[in-house]
């Protein structure tokens, strides 16, 4: 006894009314969205870079991480710490993969305070592989006083602590969300850092910079306390890679990405095996399910 009553449905009017209501509400937000975009996120649209570690198959490039470490050491480490990493990490798999000896040599350049001597004063010794990276400043106050009041952030997780926003109409946002998930795009922070490092320039007319500040088109407010850190040929590369500002920026950003996500290579490798396993299991379960249910009508 199944009668289709749709033909003489008295509620058609209600349906139309409520759909109209929904359409009205959606249209309300839609029509007025350009006005909002104008007053929305500051800064220019940031271009996405083609990182070696981006996406489903992305992995760190060992040579790039080694160059990036070079840039960090020569240029950044005077002000920026790397306190969550240890010197041994430089030799670990999936990273810059320096040899143990190279990593130890880097560690030994640092001075580490370890315990107290017989008179109770802090005892200094050269760094070991097991030591954490030594920060350039003892504390935030020292860092600020040495940097015109600004605090150079630690690099350990910085590449995950920054992000960028797409400048797209709101109704296309769900599409981009899905796109980023499917393409496994997790490099928003790296894109930001690269854009910042290459975003220096002279201030446009009418912009007055504060004392000791530099103009940067990417930084929020466009005034940044850090002077343009990278110059052409700032760091010597032994592998023949061009030593442009862009290349330096790319390499040091890749290094920072690795510092903030050191197990990315291993994670993506294991991920493939897990996904294949789950696909096979899903297929088996599907066949078993179909076979079990084939004996009943459903």
């Amino acid at each position, binding site marked *: 006894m*199944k009668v289709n009553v749709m033909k003489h449905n008295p509620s058609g009017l209600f349906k139309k009314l409520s759909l109209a209501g929904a359409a009205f509400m959606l249209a309300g937000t839609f029509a007025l969205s350009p006005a909002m975009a104008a007053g929305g996120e500051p800064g220019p649209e940031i271009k996405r870079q083609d990182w070696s570690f981006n996406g489903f198959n992305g992995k760190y490039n060992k040579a790039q991480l080694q160059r990036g470490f070079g840039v960090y050491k020569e240029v950044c480490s005077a002000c920026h710490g790397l306190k969550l990493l240890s010197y041994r990490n430089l030799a670990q798999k999936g990273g810059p993969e320096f040899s143990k000896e190279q990593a130890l040599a880097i560690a030994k350049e640092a001075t580490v305070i370890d315990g107290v001597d017989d008179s109770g004063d802090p005892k200094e010794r050269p760094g070991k592989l097991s030591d954490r990276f030594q920060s350039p400043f003892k504390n935030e106050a020292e860092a600020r006083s040495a940097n015109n009041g600004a605090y150079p952030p630690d690099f350990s997780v910085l590449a995950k602590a920054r992000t960028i926003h797409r400048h797209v109409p709101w109704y296309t946002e769900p599409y981009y969300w899905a796109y980023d998930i499917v393409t496994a795009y997790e490099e928003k922070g790296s894109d930001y850092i690269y854009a910042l490092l290459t975003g220096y320039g002279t201030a446009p007319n009418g912009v007055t910079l504060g004392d000791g500040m530099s103009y940067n088109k990417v930084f929020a407010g466009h005034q940044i306390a850090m002077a343009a850190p990278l110059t052409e040929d700032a760091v010597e590369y032994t592998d023949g890679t061009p030593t442009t500002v862009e290349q330096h920026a790319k390499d040091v950003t890749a290094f920072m990405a690795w510092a903030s996500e050191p197990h990315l290579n291993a994670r993506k490798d294991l*991920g493939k095996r897990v996904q294949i396993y789950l696909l096979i299991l899903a297929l088996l379960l599907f066949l078993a399910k179909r076979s079990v249910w084939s004996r009943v009508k*459903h």
Partner: protein
Amino acid sequence: MSEHSSSYKPSNAFTRWMDERLPIIRLVYDSFGVFPTPRNLNYLWTFGGILTFCLLVQIVTGIVIAMHFVAHGDHAFASVEHLMRDVNWGDLIRYTHAVGASMFFFAAYVHIFRGLYYGSYKSPREILWILGVIILLMMIITAFMGYSLVWGQMSFWAVTVITNLFTAIPIVGESITQWIWGGYSVGDPTLNRLFSLHYLFPFIIAALVGLHIWALHVVGSNNPTGVEVKTKEDTLSFFPYFVIKDGFMVIMFALLFSWFVFYAPNYLGHSDNYIEANPLQTPPHIVPEWYFLPFYAILRAIPDKLFGVIAMVLAIVVLFVIPWLDTSKIKSVKYRPMFKPFFWLFVITCLALGYLGAKAPEGYYLLASRLFTAYYFIHFLVVMPVVGLIEKPKALPDSITESVTGKSSPEETAKEGAQS
């Protein structure tokens, strides 16, 4: 259905001995073996099993993370990073837990909307539904506390903002807030109690899930027609039919889950939470995790502090009373032509509130939040009671079996078949 006598027969001396002392094998056999389940359930009904899987994953990974976490303001953030960097498999365990929270809510929301669509809250399933709402409430509190433990900027300021909601309570608000903080601001005592309760609550949730399943087994599953089970013909035993079906969907769900864990673990998080908590600096945009966004939008839609909080709380509390707000005799929206468009309008409302919760509450975003917030409550308080009274529903099938085997037109049967 609670009266149905057990058909379990111990097969050997040990099971007979056991059965006389603790009939636990009988319980499992009755509840998950022969338990009669409507044969026409569609795939939306597998989300109960998926949610059980989610709870298990969260508890297991959570216990493991607690072995490495340090509940102290100076060390919490670093201990999480230590877990990510140095502990064997630590990054995967933590990402599974973090992504797992999102997956848990995703599955819970599908489960809830399935219940709303098919009228699973209606008599005789009111208690079953209410237990579910309590579980949702506990999940919200637990997830919030868990997020705070990372002690990043978002964690810290989320705790600050949410605990400050209590100051909206007249007269005693200030004292309650200080009681929650254990001080005059969010600090170490707060972090410690959040950790303690975050560890406790999942076990309370597990107990509530036990009650939820118990209540389910008393009244039996609802089904896409909303017509109650009449004969044995209408049902199939839980094993193997639904075990294998649920199992298949759990693995499909695990595929999605593992995609996030392995390839987009930070996609659902916020970059500001990788900055250690700093009580002197608030991030420019405070946004909760995506699964709280609709409630956050409701909170901000109301210009008054106290009424904003009340509205947000009511948004969940109203779910407790919908078994009595819905005046329709018919369960499934499938047979309710007048109510159906309102149902989908409600779905759009929830999605829109989620979207608006992530936007700055100004200009037209704010206006839209207010419109959708209004409909959120109108849907439950006006549409549900009124439409149920004036609507003329479509004819229901006589029984579940009829809806499956279909004595009407062949197209109808094919359509049903595709859904089950």
